[in-house]
């Protein structure tokens, strides 16, 4: 019965792949899709893009038109970090004893790499409205620099209380900026700051501010998850 089921699924997937390669109405060939049929044409029209003022079209949708969805994504990440802390977090914690001892070369080299990773992550966060990237990948990069510190020193603990404070601060400021849209404009997360010229560093209104806050929040959340993974309860 199980093998029959697997055979049926394999045949169904093969049928879907053959249909997808056939350049039909439902599956056009790569690059030949008329985008204005698939996503709302309002996102792509020139007037609306100039109203948001972000040179990166993906950012102008994710943070410009759909900021409420982004708030949901940030909430999902917050709940997952909360769950990890609920299961693994204890009051008295120490670093987990692992089987490897980092040597001198690893420690010094990681300190040099740390600076490069941090500068790249802040570049990606700050230029989220101009070039690919943004708050989520940049925040994950900040967290991976924290992970590098954990990897390179077997006694290192990051300042987890500071990260928690930063996370709460960034998250609540994100919502407050959205609520200010109700005061200065008409809608939640409306873009009430002047948008400036498309392509300038200081443009796109509230989008760079929101991306900086998202980056800090995501980075501190994932750093908290990493700390929970690499610590254990202190045995008395």
């Amino acid at each position, binding site marked *: 019965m199980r093998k029959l089921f697997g055979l049926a699924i394999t045949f169904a997937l093969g049928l879907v792949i053959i249909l997808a390669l056939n350049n039909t109405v439902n599956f056009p060939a790569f690059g030949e899709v008329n985008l204005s049929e698939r996503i709302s044409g309002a996102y792509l029209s020139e007037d609306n893009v100039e109203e948001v003022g972000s040179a990166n079209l993906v950012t102008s949708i994710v943070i410009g038109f759909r900021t409420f969805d982004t708030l949901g994504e940030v909430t999902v990440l917050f709940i997952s970090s909360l769950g990890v802390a609920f299961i693994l977090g204890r009051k008295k914690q120490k670093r*987990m*004893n692992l089987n490897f001892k980092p040597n001198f070369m690893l420690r010094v080299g990681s300190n040099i790499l740390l600076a490069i990773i941090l500068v790249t992550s802040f570049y990606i966060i700050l230029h989220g409205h101009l070039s690919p990237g943004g708050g989520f990948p940049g925040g994950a990069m900040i967290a991976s620099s924290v992970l590098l510190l954990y990897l390179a020193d077997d006694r290192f603990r990051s300042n987890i209380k500071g990260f928690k404070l930063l996370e709460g601060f960034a998250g609540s400021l994100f919502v407050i900026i959205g609520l200010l849209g109700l005061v200065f404009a008409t809608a939640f997360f409306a873009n009430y700051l002047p948008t400036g010229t498309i392509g300038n560093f200081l443009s796109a209104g509230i989008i760079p501010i929101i991306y900086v806050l998202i980056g800090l929040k995501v980075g501190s959340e994932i750093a908290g998850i990493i700390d929970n993974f690499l610590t254990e309860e202190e045995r008395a």
Partner: protein
Amino acid sequence: MTFFDFLSIVVGVLLLVIAFLAINSKKLINSVLFLSALSMLAVVAFVLMKAPDVAITEAVIGSGLVTSLFVFTLLSVREEKLK
């Protein structure tokens, strides 16, 4: 057949092969490394499909954070078994 087509076919076949290896390898640590290689190739595929935003996210999370978390978890699990 242009160079672009050739590259996308090579990347696609390699993705399938590495995914199969990641499922079927005997040691867990090999599975994790194949998963990391899969993420790295997926980054190339995303760049070929002109989605640099997704490529950056995949490079940071897929091949960086997830791999190291898996490796650390495997290390700590082994140590518990030794005691």
